[in-house]
């Protein structure tokens, strides 16, 4: 580090842009925080990282039994277990990451009030750490595809785009909620409820074609609609409506940018009120 390094600290008012130079300087810390979250998540558990796949796996079994067998919900092509797990993989990532990142600032109070580093790393680190769980769930899905002899199509090349969309949407929501949680602990009570309701307005259990045509585009306002449809499109090759997915992708990007801006705006009071 050259000694010509110079910073001026002044009061900030209004909306602030993201300090990319600072994020670059501290880039290794983000990796360390992700690594920390991964290391401690399953410490002193019997099943360890198995928990990462157990959750979506059990949810898939229950969904298949209740919604497919009992209620008669049909998938739009692939066997229902594949259909359900392909939707549950990003949904579990979203719900776990949102609940953990929205609580991350409050549970790292000491870091926030004692020391400075780009604080966006705290909620982003929680999100990043859960990408490993998502990866493990996708491996489980691959094994299940082999079991059902379901072919992989070329659309798999789209998967990174939809993973990125999932990360953007999750981070956007996580950043916003974590910032609000510092001032308003109401967030802690609202998040589990929102997540519970969220699965019903996202086509995880049912295919999008069960939604009447004019309502489908409205579903696109939920960023996870596009992500779930996109995962099925990329992995299972099921036909998916691009207008809905495109709208969801745009909403994901907007959520991420607005999340960063809201976080930056509220950040300067964190240490005083946390």
């Amino acid at each position: 580090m050259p000694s010509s390094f110079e910073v001026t600290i002044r009061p900030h008012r209004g909306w602030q842009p993201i300090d990319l130079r600072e994020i670059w300087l501290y880039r290794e810390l983000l990796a360390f925080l992700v690594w920390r979250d991964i290391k401690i998540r399953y410490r002193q558990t019997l099943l360890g990282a198995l928990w990462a796949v157990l959750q979506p796996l059990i949810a898939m079994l229950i969904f298949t039994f209740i919604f497919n067998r009992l209620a008669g919900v049909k998938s739009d092509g692939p066997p229902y277990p594949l259909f359900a797990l392909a939707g549950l993989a990003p949904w579990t990532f979203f719900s776990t990451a949102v609940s953990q990142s929205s609580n991350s600032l409050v549970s790292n109070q000491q870091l926030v009030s004692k020391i400075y580093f780009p604080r966006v790393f705290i909620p982003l680190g929680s999100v990043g750490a859960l990408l490993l769980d998502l990866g493990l769930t996708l491996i489980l899905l691959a094994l299940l595809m082999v079991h059902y002899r379901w072919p992989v199509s070329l659309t798999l090349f789209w998967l990174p785009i939809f993973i990125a969309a999932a990360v953007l949407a999750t981070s956007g929501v996580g950043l916003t909620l974590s910032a609000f949680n510092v001032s308003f602990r109401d967030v802690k009570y609202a998040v589990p409820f929102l997540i519970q309701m969220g699965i019903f307005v996202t086509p995880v259990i049912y295919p999008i074609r069960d939604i009447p045509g004019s309502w489908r585009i409205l579903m696109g306002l939920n960023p996870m609609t596009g992500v779930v449809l996109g995962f099925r499109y990329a992995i299972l090759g099921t036909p998916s409506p691009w207008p809905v997915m495109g709208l969801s992708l745009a909403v994901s990007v907007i959520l991420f940018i607005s999340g960063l801006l809201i976080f930056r705006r509220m950040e300067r009071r964190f240490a005083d009120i946390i």
Partner: protein
Amino acid sequence: MPSIIEVSHLSKEYERGRSVHQETLREFLVRNLNPLAWMRTLGRNTKESRKFWALNDVSFQVGQGDVVGILGRNGAGKSTLLKVISKVTDPTSGSITLRGRLGSLLEVGTGFHPELTGRENVYLNGAILGMSKSEIDACFDAIIDFSEIGKFLDIPVKRYSSGMYLRLAFAVAAHLNTEILIADEVLAVGDIAFQRKCLRKMSEVARQGRTVLFVSHNMAAVADLCSRGIVLDAGKLIFDGSAKQAIQLYTGMMFHTNGAPSHIIDLRSALDRRSPQGKLLQAIELYTGNDEPLVNEVKLGSCVKVRVHFNLPVATSSYNVGLGFNNASGQRAFTAHTSFEPNRDQAAVSGPQVLVCEIPSLTLVPGDYVLRVWLDVGKTEADLIDSATRITVLESDFYGSGKLPSDGMFVLDHNWALGS
């Protein structure tokens, strides 16, 4: 040459109570949207009265290699100043320019995770303090050596003793390689031997030409490390000069606001207190040898009696009281302790107690002394007050020769004879 730290007209305003009381969303909405509540605040200026300045128009500059002690009573604004400099919180107005990378030790062990091993925490904590992985790799062995952790390196730190934990935490922080270092009370870690080691490390850092801002209530450490001192009071900078003068001003300040001086010192509302087992120390009374009240001043060589009032919530025979006399530069000149008395037999007692310590001849050289009082229950510290009161020792003709001794730390009886 430009200064390394430039603080100009820095102010920070807090709203009293806001940080203690956590507002819920409902209260926020009521406060901002309810027209009745809003109109009521128009009438009374309630918001204004709840605000206070933690820092008020503070300006100073620090040059390359300066080691500056920041002194002030609790709530004077020291910690707020360090928090603003380290970007933890935004100033309300004014600015700070830093010409160099800043490392902050606002509390050792920040970011340590109990589930991670010592080795893992070194990397995590280093990264949080702003070190890169290659920098940590480079000084990893030095950190482990310094911490004396040895074979416990690969077990989770939740299994460490508190001493080991603090040693490792300080070791990481001490190896920060930034041009500017700010430190708050970091020296209060570990046992005496390790505290000395920490102090040595700090003075080594100071000698390397790095710029250090140092907040501590340990006057000896400040006197030892710092060349310059800044005194804050109620958010204002009231002194900027030599460390020695700053310490004198600060120790003087400690006792001039407690009303009229008296020989009875109420300890129940004492500042600078560590009370792991509650506020057990109640008061001290000072008397001369003839049991006359002694108010702040005593002649060199005369008798002093200190009556210590304290409470024992649970019946015990294992309690000890200590008195420490610290001189103006913070060094301990003399310690009186119940355990020093041979064959002392104590019955198990509980409730309010009084112990009287008689010092037949206080032979400290003239000057100001700060009296530290503490109570141990069992083998651990129960209650400690850093600066219970100040005692000024006045000059006297101790040797009966008409010469008034003032050099050194003590006067001791001695004889001279011609040798053969």
